[in-house]
């Protein structure tokens, strides 16, 4: 199990448990974390599971793939720390991960 903390725009924090192998988006949906819409169900096809990875975790979650980079064109207020949470696989290495949820996915 890996703990993942979602920080809402208003500062509220919610920590959920994720099973290694599932994605950060799936952990959010399973625990009804507000603000992760995931319209397409994880196909990297909609950019509605956009999160900002907290700086100290950026290296550990790795870089965006080309497809994810393309899809981020459809997200709003993309920053260097932007990721699509359906493309971050949970592993013990990211136990404790903290991500911020945008005010609105769209």
């Amino acid at each position, binding site marked *: 199990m890996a703990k993942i903390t979602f920080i809402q725009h208003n500062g509220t924090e919610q920590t959920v448990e994720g099973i290694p192998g599932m994605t950060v988006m799936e952990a959010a949906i399973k625990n009804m974390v507000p603000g992760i819409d995931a319209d397409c*169900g994880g*196909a990297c096809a909609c950019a509605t599971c956009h999160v900002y990875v907290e700086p100290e975790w950026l290296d550990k979650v790795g870089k965006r793939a080309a497809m994810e980079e393309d899809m981020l064109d*459809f997200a*709003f207020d993309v920053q260097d720390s932007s990721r699509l949470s359906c493309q971050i696989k949970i592993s013990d290495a990211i136990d404790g991960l903290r991500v911020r949820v945008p005010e609105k996915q*769209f």
Partner: protein
Amino acid sequence: MSDVISTDAVIIGAGPCGLFAIFELGLLDIKCHVVDILDRAGGQCAELYPEKPIYDIPALPIVTGAELTHRLLEQAKPFHPQFHFNQMVTELIKHGDSDFELKTDGGITFRCKIVVVAAGGGSFQPKKPPIPGIDAYEGTSVFYSVKKMEDFRGKDILIVGGGDSALDWTNNLAPIAKSLTLLHRRDEFRAAPDSVKKMRELVAAGKMQMKLGQVTGLTGADGILSSVQVKGNDGAAFDIQANTLLPFFGLTMKLGPVANWGLNLNENLIPVDTEKFESSTPGIFAIGDINHYPGKLKLILSGFHEAALLAQQAFHYINPGKRLLFQYTTSSTSLQKKLGVV
């Protein structure tokens, strides 16, 4: 006067489940009209993942969304479905048993005996970027689609995005705009390479500008935009003078008018029984991602099963008192005739 079309069934949604419903209803001689808000068939398979492989369609170990759509259209062809694209069913009124009236925002009125809601996650609508105050400019200075190009003649236009819609409209509107700027968050575009090349030629010829950055705010008065605030990729803020803003951030699914049709809803889904896949209103069926029942799985294959079963009940509404003989396509000459294979 709007057109009135009389038919047996209207299917709302031309995604995989709606398309297979044409086939299943067709085998029982039920004629269908199909309405979809997109400009083509396929639903999410066409809009969200046309090129992505699907691995869980029975007998097709791997198939793309586009290929699956193509095959379903082929399969439905013998039944001559009539498609009405680029429109949304806005009203659904029950006049009596087996008598429904539907209206679309494209001005079509249908009278039909049964309705199949196969609307997936709802209708695809343009994503509205959450820029503070954008609502005040919508319809006057901010547009999410181009209906008539002429409306944009002589305007100072800012287009935001890097996909096909953004690039196509950049290239089409640049010649008639007073000024045109394309704003994108990076110097790479997911749009077709040809359109990108054309855009770069327009920039080189001084016909338009291309800037890198993201919109942060809007300035204007009385619904008329005067400038757009932008954060450049280097972090520096700048303004772009524009009285027209066209943001193209793709589409998202919204439940839309389904909520106003008097059906029982449960968390934006239509509860149905698992024998007939019928909603709380007899004669209105719901299949695919938009329905809910105990054990529901949002899989395309579940929608196929649901389509087959709803057709059985639909037959009884359309042919009251008539016995329905269950037949196999492998052995029934009558079904094979309908399919045009004998």
